[in-house]
């Protein structure tokens, strides 16, 4: 997968990762004041969520989506 986790114990709810994600993968749970991965399958692995000031975001290598790559 791509974006793997946001550590809720560390997340301070500032919402920077929500704003910086260009494709709306992350949303803010406003009640709990925590960032949540809402649309993981759309992550394009740009890494801009790593702007997190608390270092709460973890990415993983790999790609979870079936897709034509290379030449078979």
């Amino acid at each position, binding site marked *: 997968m791509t974006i793997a986790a946001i550590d809720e114990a560390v997340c301070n709810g500032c919402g920077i990762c929500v704003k910086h994600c*260009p*494709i709306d993968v992350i*949303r803010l749970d406003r009640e709990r004041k925590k960032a949540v991965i809402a649309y993981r399958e759309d992550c*394009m*692995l740009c*890494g*801009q969520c790593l702007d997190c000031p608390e270092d709460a975001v973890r990415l993983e290598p790999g*790609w979870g989506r079936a*897709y034509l790559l290379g030449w078979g």
Partner: protein
Amino acid sequence: MKETTVQTDVLVIGGGMAGCFAAVKAREAGRDVVLVDKGYVSKSGETPYAGDTAVFNPAWGHDLDAWLTQVRTVGEYLNDARWTEIVFRDSYERFLDLRAFGVEFLEEDGEPVRLDHPLTQIELPDRDKFPPLVSQVVHWLPGWPAKLRKAVVKSGAKIIDRFVVTELLMEDGRVVGAAGFDVEGNATRVLRAGAVVMSAGGGGFKAVGYPTHELTADGHVMAYRAGCEVTGKEFLSPHHTNPEEPGWPPIYPVFASGHSAAFPGAWHDPEMVNAEGDPVPVRGMAWHGWIDAEWEAHEGRAPVLAAGPPDGKVRPLSGPGGHGSMLGHAAGGIVPVDDTCATHVPGLYAAGDSCGTCFVGAAYSGFGFATMHAAVTGARAGLGAAEYARSADRAAPDARGEAEALERALAPLRRRGGFTPRWTTQVLQNALAPYFVLYIKKEERLRAALTTVEFLRDHVVPKLYARDDHELRLAHETANMVANAEMKLRASLLRTESRGTHYREDFPRRDDPDWLAWVRLKDEGGVMTPFTEPIPEESRPDPALPYAQRYPMRLPGEEAR
């Protein structure tokens, strides 16, 4: 559903390099400006990944003729020489603007460090007839896009982040604003404007490997639907990756370091080796990475191995055909009709990768050229739009037209079923991504893909449905990608020759008598219609030069003729 109406002089759609310049320049001209972006200005589009920009400056010893010759040679004469020169000549002033915005550059003794960016590591045949490639880039330091955003804020322009524009509002054949919805929160907005700058980037197909999924040709397609001409769609901006970890490492931390040259990109590595252990020759273009690897695969010699990201190790290379073209970087887009980036539709201006100046021609010819082009066209479009907004009469708002536009924006959310954007995108990718469609082209294969795309256009796109606001955005992006696919296929079918990054297996030679021309597309009564526009006399190659000297690179299949 919350509904808001915003009024401004100049509306800028898309907040990358081009849009930020447009907003700042329109403000300097004294106009009210609203800048909208479906992401967050400074973090969206391709801008965050740009590591450098080219600057032409005679005081640094740059020779205009040499730079122009480079673009002509690599772009195979399809660059609009007038625009190429405009971009070069304006670029130093835009560099000074960037410094004034607070963008920091890698410097030594108060002077920016300038790096020669070799476009090619190979020896061109007839080297004496083709001068060394000479572009120079300067590297900015990390965090530079945030400085662009600050410059926009400081200018007094209003920024609306995370807002998706779905269509341009028209009245009496003029663009008078735009409509759309917030990415999050189920709210719609009508943006009324005296003039609009379209700077929403180019378009790909959400391919894996390079993080350009938000670039779904929205700007090209919205302008096309408003009556603009679009050009350059048959050309590609290939960027290889590797199939094992196509998106790894995330590209932003690497590129945003300000030293993209440190990123060992496989696409221009000269050491490609095919499955039989033989070196892969450079074909067609003056650098590796267009159809070299694709041709090896076509001949049954995949996998191709190359050193590349993330660590410079040798591993299998995925063709760009596999992961999809990036964007057609600065090769095409909305056709400008004058030096202010005005388009065929009054009130609409185009900038950056949305703007089809054809300043690089049939292949991308220099590192840092896209950011340079974006800054220059952004500034010009901003000033052009500001002047139009100042001088043109404003139309009275058309409340009914606005309501209908919002209804169309929300239509996928109203449908209870149909086709999902994700499924549709995957069908589209499967039709277009294989190397034998958009990289090694042939009439019957282009027609087969077009049949699929036409079906998506007619049967699937009208029935796209969205279960929430996130999917509503995906639905509109998907519709735009389908339109972009049709543009790319129709332009590729019309150009019955090979040139630059357009390769036709069935027409493997450059055909100067018939094809020193641009392909353009326009809507004629609801039908996407491609046509040709001859390039100006001054852009043509010297007909006295033998073919092999006009075109030093050999394409597969042309030797046999």
